[in-house]
Structures are given as C-alpha cells and as structure tokens.
C-alpha cells in the first residue's frame, strides 16, 4: 500500500510543538507588522506585475498601498498564532504553517518591492523552470536508490548527457540528440551497475570515479572539438510550446502551460514515477530490492536483474536531465555547465524522502529560492550578494528540517547484495 512509503505525517502534536508553532506564528506576525510595515513610508505603493515578459496573456498589474496590506497580513498571522496557542490546529498545524509561510513570503516580497515593482508572475514561472534540472536529477537518483544502489555521479551523467546531446543534436536533429543523451546516460550507468552490482565495489567510490571521468571526458571533447568547430556545438533548442487554451489562463497559464519539452516531461515523470513506484507490481519489486534484498530474493525476485534495470533507467533519466542544459536551455555545450545541479538534485531527493512527489516539491522549493535570489539582486536589496546566493539554501534547509523531519532511507541503500 502506498501509505508505507509516503512521508510520515505527525498524527499527534505534542504540546511543546504546538506552543512552538504558535510562538513562531506570532513572531512572524510581529516581523511583518512591526519590522516590515514600520520601515516604509505611509503612501508607498507596491506593484506586482502579473504578466511574465514575452507572454501573450496580459493581466493587469496588482497595485496596492504597502503598509495597510502588510498590516492585514500581520493581523492574520497574529490571529493564527493566537488560535494555535489557545485552541491549536491539531492535525492541521502543518497546513497553518504553510499558510503563515506563504503570508511571510508575500509580505517579504511586498516589502522589498515597495516603491517599485516586481514581476510576480515571472518569479513564479522562473521557479518552475529552475526546478526542472533539479527535479529530473532527483528522479534519476531516486530510481537508483530505491533499488539499493547509491549513485553520486548523477552530476557526471548529466554532464555527459548534455555534451552528447549537443554533439549529436548538432550533426543530426534535436530528437536524435535527445535520444543519444539518454543512451549515453544509460551506458555510464551500466558501468556503474557492473562495478557496484557485479563486482560489489564501494558505490560511493565507483560513482566518484565516474563523476571525475565524466568531467574530464566532456571537457576534453568540448575543448578539442566542440569549441573549435562551431557546427559541432550548435544543436538549437526545443522551442516553447504553449498548450492551447490552458496557457491563456492568467498567471497559472505561463507558469505551467507555456514551456518546452523538458518542463512538461518533469510534470509527466512526477505522476508516472509516483504511480509506477507505489501502485504497480514493478514498483513493489523495485522497492523490495532496495529495502530487503534477501527477502525479495527468497520470494523469487531476481535482485541483480532488478538492480541493473533500476540503475540503467536512472542513467537514462540523468542523461535526459543533462540534455535539458544543452537542448532545453542554451543550445550549446560548455565545460562543467551543469554547475552542481545534479548534487542539488541528490539533496532534493533526500529532502523529498526518496519519493517522486517529495523530490518534486523540494526541487520546486530550490527553484523558488534560486529565482527569488535573482529577484533580490535585481531589486537591489542592500545585502551582500554572497549572502543572497546562500540564503535561499539556508532557508530551504530550515523549512525542510522543520517540516519534513526525519527521512526514510531505503534500508539496503548503498549495500551490495551478496547472494548466498
């Protein structure tokens, strides 16, 4: 049944947690009401632009006087905090927490955009786009680890997929490039599989080796061929395809229905992987191999074959994620262009508790953090830029540690299976 794999919700809220939450809500209310609202002038206006640049769907800007709006937000937070302290939200505490967090973010944005304007729709759209490589990377890592194989070379496989995709895409077409990227990921995963399943190498070591190999190999081919001969490094990109009808919905349309192949693939894979892992025989077998391979073996599941399959599927996913960078984003390959997204993907998988939906949520959170930090830089918030780059991750960690709590790692993750 699915419930076993879903993140464990806290059924019983301890009085300490209830009080802690209530006090947190009150403090957030005070922050908005006193610090934010207090630091801006009386007539200062906030403008939220609700149409992302380049979008055909135009919605009027949201303009309001900042201070009264912040006061309303603060009042709601204080009210929620008071209710939490007196009566308590019980099972709905996390819901209340999400609401307060949303109010805090909205208040924060209103505060920093006060006296100017901020493209809110663009921010939300950028959040979704920035989540794509992270989520796809997280799915790749998850397929592996659910079957009990650790692979920290997701980044390397993505890099390889990006390079091969650009190279093949340049000499043939985008679709063949994408296919080649997926195959290159699968081949690298096969090496990882042979080393870690057949030869029972330490999986961290063998995947680190693959990572270094991928970095060197892609840099070499890039420097020697792709940068010298431009026709080898000009694959073009998958064009944005707006879903007719749905993309016309204000804000929601540009956010979800005006993207290219890779973003739609992300939405598709969240659903497919969720169903496949938790509602099919295939998924049950895959998970059993990751949780208790001996028991699975006893019941007649071929542990090695299942693990090979999972590892190769993971490689294909990583190759696909890599293709995003060249075929979905910038249309050319440059050295180490994945810039750590694969590792963030690994983190998203862990925060997402080894589930597709959780990983997706964590990836979106990282995406939001990324796009918010860019907006703060543009708005000229007088904070050190290094802090702006770091703060979103810090906030993400606090949120995830506070709300998600302890993870359920597959029990046999990283342990080679020894058939007796």
């Amino acid at each position, binding site marked *: 049944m699915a419930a076993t794999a879903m993140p464990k919700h806290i059924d019983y809220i301890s009085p300490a947690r209830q009080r802690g939450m209530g006090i947190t809500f009150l403090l957030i209310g005070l922050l908005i009401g006193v610090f934010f609202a207090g630091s801006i002038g009386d007539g200062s206006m906030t403008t939220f632009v609700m149409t992302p640049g380049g979008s055909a769907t135009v919605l009027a800007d949201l303009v309001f006087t900042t201070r009264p709006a912040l006061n309303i937000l603060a009042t709601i937070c204080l009210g929620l905090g008071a209710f939490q302290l007196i009566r308590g939200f019980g099972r709905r505490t996390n819901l209340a927490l999400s609401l307060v967090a949303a109010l805090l973010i909205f208040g924060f944005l209103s505060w920093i955009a006060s006296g100017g304007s901020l*493209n809110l729709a663009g921010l939300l759209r950028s959040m979704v786009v920035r989540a794509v490589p992270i989520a796809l990377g997280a799915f790749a890592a998850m397929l592996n680890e659910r079957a009990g194989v650790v692979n920290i070379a997701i980044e390397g496989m993505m890099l390889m997929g990006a390079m091969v995709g650009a190279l093949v895409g340049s000499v043939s077409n985008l679709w063949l490039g994408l296919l080649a990227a997926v195959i290159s990921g699968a081949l690298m995963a096969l090496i990882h599989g042979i080393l870690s399943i057949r030869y029972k190498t330490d999986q961290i070591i063998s995947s680190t080796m693959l990572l270094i190999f991928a970095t060197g190999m892609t840099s070499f081919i890039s420097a020697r061929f792709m940068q010298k001969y431009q026709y080898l490094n000009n694959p073009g990109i998958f064009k944005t395809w707006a879903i007719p009808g749905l993309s016309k919905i204000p804000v929601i349309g540009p956010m979800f229905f005006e993207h290219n192949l890779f973003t739609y693939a992300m939405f598709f894979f969240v659903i497919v992987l969720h169903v496949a892992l938790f509602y099919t025989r295939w998924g049950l077998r895959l998970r059993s191999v990751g949780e208790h391979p001996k028991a699975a073996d006893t019941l007649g599941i071929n542990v090695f074959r299942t693990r090979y399959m999972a590892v190769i599927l993971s490689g294909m996913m990583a190759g696909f994620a890599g293709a995003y960078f060249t075929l979905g984003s910038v249309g*050319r390959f440059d050295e180490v262009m994945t810039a750590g997204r694969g590792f963030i993907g690994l983190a998203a998988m862990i925060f997402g508790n080894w589930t597709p939906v959780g990983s997706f949520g964590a990836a979106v959170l990282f995406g939001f953090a990324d796009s918010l930090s860019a907006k703060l830089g543009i708005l000229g918030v007088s904070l050190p830029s290094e802090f702006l780059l770091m703060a979103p991750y810090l906030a993400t960690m606090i949120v995830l540690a506070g709300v998600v709590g302890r993870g359920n790692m597959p029990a046999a993750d990283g342990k080679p299976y020894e058939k007796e």
Partner: protein
Amino acid sequence: MSKKLYSVLALLLVSAFVLAACGGGGAAGGYKACQVTDVGGIDDKTFNATAWKGVEDAVSTLGIEGKFLESQQQTDYETNINAFLEEGCDIIVTVGFLLGDATYAAADANPDQLFTIVDFPNSDPAKANLVGLLFSTDQAAFLAGYVAAATTQTGKVGTFGGINIPPVTVFMDGFWYGVQYYNQQNGTAVEVLGWNPATQEGLFTGNFESTDDGRAFAESLMDEGADIIMPVAGPVGLGSAAAIQERGNAWIIGVDTDMSVSAPEYADIILTSVLKNMDVAVYSMIEADLNGTFPGGTNFIGTLVNNGVGLAGIDGMSADMQAELQAIIDGINAGTIQTAP
C-alpha cells in the same frame, strides 16, 4: 575484489585527469610562454580565450612556443603553476583575479621566473619578476552604458556579474555611470537593474560556468522590463544570449571580446561589446621580454588611449552617436568625466 578491476579504475581515473588538463602546441622557437587559465576554460570565448589569443599571436608572429593548462577548479591554480615551474617556461601568464594569491606566492618563491597576471595588481610589495595587467574597463563600459541608454525602448537596462570581485564589478560601475551620464545630458531617466555602485552590491550568479543561470537571469531581467543586458560572467553570458534571442525584442552587450566575432550566431541581438584587449597586453609582455625590456615590478594599465580597452562596432553607429562618443572619449582622457566611484 580483483586486482584487475582496480587497475582498470586507476587507468580510467588517470585518463580522466590527463584528458581534463592538456593542451598546447606551436612551433619550437626556444622561448616558451605558458598560460594557466581560470575555471572558465581556454575556450570560454571571452576571458581566457582572449588572453590565450595574445600567446597565439606571439606564437605566429614571434615564433615562440605556447602552452596552456586549464584549471578545472580553484585548487588547480597552484598545481598548474607548479607544473609550469618545472617545465622551464620563460614566462608564465596567469589569467584572472582568482589566481592572484597563488601567482604572487609563486613569484615570491621563484624570483628567477617571470610572471604576468591578468586582472591582479602587482603591489604590497611589488615583485621585480611580476607584471600585473590591469584594465580600465570602466572607461569602455561607460561608453556601452551610454549607447545602451540611448537605445533602450523600455527605459530600463540590466547587468549581472559572475562573482562580486573588482575585475567584474568595474564593468558594472562603468556601465552604470555611462547610463547616468546619458540621463544627465539628455534629461532622461533610464534605470540600471542589477547593480548599485554606492553599495557595490547587485545581481551575481556566483559562478562562471552555469549558462543555465545566465539564461534564467536574463529572463528575470527582461521580466522586470530591461531590454538591454550586459552579462559580465564569461561563458554564462551565452545562456543570456540564448534567452534574449528566443524572446526577441531585446539586446545583449558582450564583454571582454567582440561577441559578434566570438558568437556570430547571436549577431542579430548583439548591441555592442566592451572590449578588454587582454591579447594586446599579453602579447606586449612577451614581446617586451624578448626585447629585454620586461617591465618587471610594475603594472600595465590598459585604457582607451593605449587601446587596452575599447568599444566594438563604433564605426557602424550613426554619425551623431559617433560624435557624442568621441566627445566622451576626449572627456574621459582629459579626466573631466567620472567613470567609476
């Protein structure tokens, strides 16, 4: 586990390291110039590539031998410099502010080896075997800011950098002052997004590799209304170019090298480029050393006057604009126009 497997692993690892850092070539002429790149790589089309072009020019016209090592990460700086120390290079060219400390330390420890470094001052105290190659890029960026302010349709222009370090922010300073100067001369109110010279803070990707960041940042700036964007982040700017070309209706300003030459596929959206002629500087150092006039212990400063910096495509602009830019260049040379805080 089998020994064979370990040897295969070891071989793969070694090949990876060898593949990751190799390069060079050129005619043997006795004199050897060796370049250590920053993490952007020799083919970043801007920063490292321009400096390497200086060595290549020297190879073809002066008949020397040129070699380079690419730094894959910051820990490679010292390793690569040491590798060249053992190779018996006549001059070691290091490219980038981030290599500054490693280069200075190496120059200190090896007084007989000549060094020259791009974007790092030779000071506190100056070493006799080192020359810092500095560029008044703010002067060229000032011109770009002026042109951008004259061109924008939305009244907003944007910029972002790789890392908040002086060689990057000097572009952004100049750009900002150029826009303000245009506003002051023409009574306009063109706004610069992404940089505040007073606080020295703004929009930064935090790296020089992620072209995907370049794309996202450009989209974000366009969302906020900017229609001319100057990315100061090496190859990251190519991601911005892709985003701008896809969305249309906006322009990009190249940095370090003439973007319409280095990335001709984006010619239709390139407004102009801020040139930092590192190739001229590196070449002149090699030439000076061959002539026995290596200016060790000093700094070379590239300006609009000595062609160390410049703006691309001035010839293609309108006669009015050319005249205005010439007046500004004269003003900068005379010191009557402020290009940096």
